[in-house]
């Protein structure tokens, strides 16, 4: 068939220049190649990555495809333009990032866009297809009980007063001070970059698979580089024991070589992007103390926490692995995750279910007056049972020695010596004999004791200044 023709010339072949062609070939090659941060991320994994319902194979979209979270036109297949949530959502997500009217748990699947997948394990399709354990299990090895999904972690024991969680409204509200974080952002974005977060639960010993991004460095991972790990934080770090083991350590059961923090992301710098300052807690109905993990200063009111860079006073009686003869000068610096969970916990204050290789002896409660806090302290510090030769079970979770000294030289730096004119009844309830004082009155982040701190307790007993006048007590 005869075809019309045009008078168009074909000048482009002449205009082409070598460099332009080369640039074009480079650009063309990049269309199909995607091995960058998203491709390496947990969500972008072509096998285990994000996959939304019927969209994933045999549906049209590959596992890890953007469409599993984003609807570029606020619509999806055949029912355009109505998006899944009924109206367009910011960031072209299939659902709003956060339902900010939800101030407290229990959270629903629809409260946070991420919960659409990271839902209760019993609601996941296929069942249990996206298991996310708490830190105690994923990195600490405590594989008994605990949550199996992120939503479950937040919603633990909703009927119990002592279960705690990272209040997502508070997270969302606080994170808005970071430039990248928008009103419409999901609170999860404060700590994670969903386009970069990696599959750390599968590789707990390898921090290159970190799922973290600092709020102040949202566009990069945190913990993947050697300088972003606990051994580089400053001070000496010793990983706690792996659950049930005396020979292996967190994270994930590493050996001695990896127990120096070189396998552990620097959680202190990470968490303190927010917690270095006072933060309002809607759950606690008060401000949370600012964490000072950097300051030394010894026993002064202005000093930092001893679990951080500040050192112990004179001597210290610890359990393995912190009982080493050659305890580093100033002691060890701890990682936040040595004691705390990130999302939620059956204990108060996000305290882990297991610490330093053992489960807590009971629930760590909000109540300051009891000795439940010692369930945590006792995982690393020696109680009277430990110091007494471990012969009298009645001495378990008793803390007289560390406060008042024992035999020999053990009491060289105790804060309150006995036999020097002290009157037990000043501080202790006396029936049937001197009763322990709740740990929570003196031992918490930022705490110190002097003539006015903690002062008079609710039971009317007044704690006097310790020896030396002031003592940092955390």
């Amino acid at each position, binding site marked *: *068939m*005869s*075809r*019309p*023709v*045009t*008078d*168009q*010339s*074909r*000048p*482009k072949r002449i*205009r*082409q*220049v070598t460099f*332009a*062609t080369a*640039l*074009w070939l*480079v*650009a*063309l090659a*990049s*269309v*199909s190649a*995607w*091995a*960058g*941060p*998203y*491709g390496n991320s947990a969500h*972008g994994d*072509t096998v285990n*990555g994000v996959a939304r319902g019927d969209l994933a194979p045999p549906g*049209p*979209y*590959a*596992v*890890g*495809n*953007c*469409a599993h979270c984003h609807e*570029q*036109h*606020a*619509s999806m*297949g*055949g029912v*355009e*333009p109505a998006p899944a949530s009924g109206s*367009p*959502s*910011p*960031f*072209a997500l299939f659902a709003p990032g956060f339902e900010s009217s939800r101030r407290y748990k229990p959270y629903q699947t629809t409260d946070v866009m991420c919960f659409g997948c990271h839902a209760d394990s019993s609601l996941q399709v296929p069942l249990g297809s996206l298991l996310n354990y708490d830190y105690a299990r994923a990195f600490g090895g405590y594989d008994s009980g605990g949550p199996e999904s992120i939503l479950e972690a937040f919603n633990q024991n909703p009927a119990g007063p002592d279960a705690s969680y990272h209040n997502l409204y508070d997270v969302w509200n606080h994170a808005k001070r970071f430039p990248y974080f*928008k009103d*419409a*952002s999901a609170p999860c974005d404060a700590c994670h970059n969903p*386009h970069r977060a990696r599959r750390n639960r599968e590789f707990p010993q390898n921090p290159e698979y970190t799922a973290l991004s600092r709020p102040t460095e949202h*566009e990069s991972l945190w913990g993947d580089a050697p300088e972003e790990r606990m051994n580089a934080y400053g001070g000496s770090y010793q990983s706690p024991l792996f659950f049930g083991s005396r020979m292996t350590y967190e994270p994930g059961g590493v050996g001695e070589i990896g127990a120096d923090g070189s396998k552990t992301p620097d959680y202190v710098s990470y968490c303190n992007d927010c917690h270095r300052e006072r933060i309002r807690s809607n759950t606690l109905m008060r401000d949370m103390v600012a964490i000072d993990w950097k300051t030394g200063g010894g026993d002064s009111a202005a000093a930092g926490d001893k679990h951080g860079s500040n050192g112990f006073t004179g001597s210290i009686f610890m359990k393995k692995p912190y009982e080493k003869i050659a305890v580093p000068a100033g002691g060890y610096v701890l990682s936040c995750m040595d004691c705390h969970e990130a999302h939620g916990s059956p204990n108060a204050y996000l305290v882990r279910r297991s610490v330093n290789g053992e489960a807590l002896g009971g629930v760590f409660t909000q109540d300051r007056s009891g000795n439940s806090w010692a369930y945590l302290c006792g995982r690393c510090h020696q109680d009277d049972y430990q110091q007494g030769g471990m012969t009298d079970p009645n001495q378990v979770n008793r803390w007289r020695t560390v406060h008042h000294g024992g035999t020999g030289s053990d009491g060289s730096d105790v804060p309150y010596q006995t036999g020097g004119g002290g009157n037990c009844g000043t501080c202790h309830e006396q029936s049937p004999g001197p009763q322990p004082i709740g740990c929570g009155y003196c031992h918490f982040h930022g705490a110190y004791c002097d003539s006015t701190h903690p002062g008079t307790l609710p039971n009317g007993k007044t704690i006097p200044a310790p020896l030396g006048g002031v003592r940092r007590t955390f």
Partner: protein
Amino acid sequence: MKRKADSRSALDGLLASLTGCVSLLLVLLAPSAQAAVTGLCSSCHTMHYSQDGGAMPEWGDDGPFESLLTSTCAGCHMGVNDGGAMPFVFSSQPPVYGVSGSGSDSNTLAGGNFYWVAQAGGDTRGHNVYGLMARDQTLSQPPGYTGNRAAADGSVPGAGSWPVGQQVTCAGVYGCHGSHAEQSPAEAVRGGHHQGRGGALVTPDTEPANGFRMLVGIAGYEDADWEFRPTVAAHNQYKGSTGGADNSTISSLCARCHGNFHSAVSAGSPWLRHPVDYDMGSTAPNSEYRSYGGAERNSYRPDIPVASLNVSQPLTRVTFSGDTIVACVSCHRAHGSPNHKMMRWDYAGSIGGGCTACHTSKD
């Protein structure tokens, strides 16, 4: 009868010759009409849809056709591109598309090809054009249709109301090319072939001939060979404009039928829908988008093009100052592609693929 037929044939020949001469004269007198069709009138037209007493075999059995044409749009524009002077948009054999349809071995053009839509299960791979393939089995109307955006001549696709089940056409009331006020596709693009211009079309008016690819009111720079194996230096330059109100942008053309897709796209981050007619130069100087075309190199990418305010010439580099405007065609092929949702690259079959052309920090 034979005599009558002979005289009609002679008259046809005379008319064809005269028309050809007039056309040629017009072409010679109009130096800007570089893209106008030239050649013998009889290449496209027949006075009586008859030659030597009957229809020519190559005309097919469906005529006669409007405007005394010997065929439909597809009749002329069906074939295999080889860089020649005729743009083929529909092929009976699988076109060579490659990764992006813009490679050195591809034989599709800027709009892609309708071939894949015509294949079984191909509804999502392009526009289901009436006469080329059956209607879409899922979508009975253009997704996102609002019917409230008009072409420069005031015409609106479907006159503002798209009948359920109505297929899109090449041109006309339900088409993309020409005026939406004309039922006849040929009438809709009237003058487009004979008076068509090439190169820079910066001031489109109501005439199809003055619009980019006979798209009424749309500006742009027309690549001389419809982007057959385009390069950084030789490609279409699509018109874009920020704010969403400029009806001469290539994306505004799409919005005539897919208006909802363009609602809430100009409010800024966080976007409710993927923005179009938004300049990536409006992002922070250190944003990931500033690495489009390579960090600090910023070459124009014909495979994932961006539009510009100035369409007087094709750009080899972008400067993020009115020349990095996201357009519908940045991601989609207007006619069709081998990919789901007529994407330029295999988006659905990958974790995103070409998205990283702009979302560079993800790569």
